[in-house]
C-alpha cells in the first residue's frame, strides 16, 4: 500500500514536470504559460510573435476576400486585451498642446509652414489617440496611397512606409489648423475615429483608435515651438508637446 502511494507521488511529480516541459516546448521560442505572468509586456508577447499573429490574421482575412477586415484575428486573447486597453488620461492644466498618441517621438519635420510631429507606436503602446487641444473638427478624410505617392513623398520618414489607409482629422484651433493623421502599415486598415465632423472637442478627449497600426502624425503650424526632445516617449493626452504660445 505504501509502495503504491510512493509510486503515485512519484508519477504525479514526473507528470507535472512533463506537462511543464511540454508547455515550454510547444511555446518555444516564445515564453510558455508558466513564466508569462512574470514577464513584462515586451517579453511576454515578443515582437516576432505579434508579427506572426498579424500576418496570419491578414492571410486568413485575405482568404475570406478582404485582407483589411478585422473578422479573423489570430492574436492571442491576452495580448489583444492588453493591446486594446483604454486607460483614462488627465491632460495637464494650462494652455499647452498634448501628444495625440502614446509612443516614441520619432521624427520632426517642417515644410511649407507646417510642422510634422511623428509619433511611432509599438505593439505594446496604448492605441487610443486623443485630441492635442480644444477645437472644432472640420474634416475627417480617408486617404489611400496618396500620402506616400503624392503630398507625402518628400517626407523622409514615410518614404519607405507602406500606408494602405490613413484617416486625417482636421481640427480648427486657436493656433490655426491642426491635422492628426492616423496611419497603419502592418496589418492595415483598422482605423476608428470616435467623433464626427462639426464636433467641438476638448484637449485629451478620445479621438480614435488604431487596431494594429503604427504611426500618428500631428501636423500644426510650424511657428508653434516644440517642448519635447526627439526620441522621447510621449503619452497621449498627458505629455505636453508644446507650451502652445501663439506666434
Amino acid at each position: 500500500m505504501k509502495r503504491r502511494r510512493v509510486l503515485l507521488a512519484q508519477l504525479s511529480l514526473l507528470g507535472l514536470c512533463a506537462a511543464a516541459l511540454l508547455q515550454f516546448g510547444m511555446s518555444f521560442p516564445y515564453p510558455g504559460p508558466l513564466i508569462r505572468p512574470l514577464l513584462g509586456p515586451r517579453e511576454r508577447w515578443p515582437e516576432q510573435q505579434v508579427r506572426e499573429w498579424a500576418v496570419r490574421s491578414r492571410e486568413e482575412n485575405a482568404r475570406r476576400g478582404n485582407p483589411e477586415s478585422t473578422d479573423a484575428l489570430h492574436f492571442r486573447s491576452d495580448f489583444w486585451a492588453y493591446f486594446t486597453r483604454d486607460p483614462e488620461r488627465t491632460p495637464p492644466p494650462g494652455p499647452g498642446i498634448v501628444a495625440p498618441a502614446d509612443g516614441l517621438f520619432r521624427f520632426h519635420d517642417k515644410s511649407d509652414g507646417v510642422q510634422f510631429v511623428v509619433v511611432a507606436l509599438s505593439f505594446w503602446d496604448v492605441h487610443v489617440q486623443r485630441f492635442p487641444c480644444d477645437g472644432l473638427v472640420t474634416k475627417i478624410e480617408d486617404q489611400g496611397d496618396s500620402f506616400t505617392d503624392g503630398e507625402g513623398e518628400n517626407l523622409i520618414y514615410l518614404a519607405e512606409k507602406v500606408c494602405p489607409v490613413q484617416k486625417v482629422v482636421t481640427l480648427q484651433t486657436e493656433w490655426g489648423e491642426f491635422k492628426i493623421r492616423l496611419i497603419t502599415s502592418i496589418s492595415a486598415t483598422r482605423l476608428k475615429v470616435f467623433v464626427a465632423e462639426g464636433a467641438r472637442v476638448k484637449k485629451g478627449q478620445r479621438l480614435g483608435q488604431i487596431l494594429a497600426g503604427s504611426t500618428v502624425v500631428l501636423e500644426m503650424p510650424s511657428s508653434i515651438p516644440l517642448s519635447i526632445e526627439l526620441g522621447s516617449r510621449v503619452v497621449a493626452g498627458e505629455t505636453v508637446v508644446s507650451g502652445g504660445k501663439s506666434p
Partner: protein
Amino acid sequence: MKQHRWLWGDGRFSWVLVVWVVLGTLFILVFDYYWRTNDTEFSRFW
C-alpha cells in the same frame, strides 16, 4: 533489472530520478526566465 536499481528502485521510480527530473525542469524554467529578462550574450545570440 538489478543493475538498474538506481533508476527503478524496487518496483518504484528511484527518488534520485524524480529529484533529477524536478531539478532539471526547474532549471530549464528559471533559465528561460533569466535569458528573456536579461540582456546577455546568449539572449542576443538567440
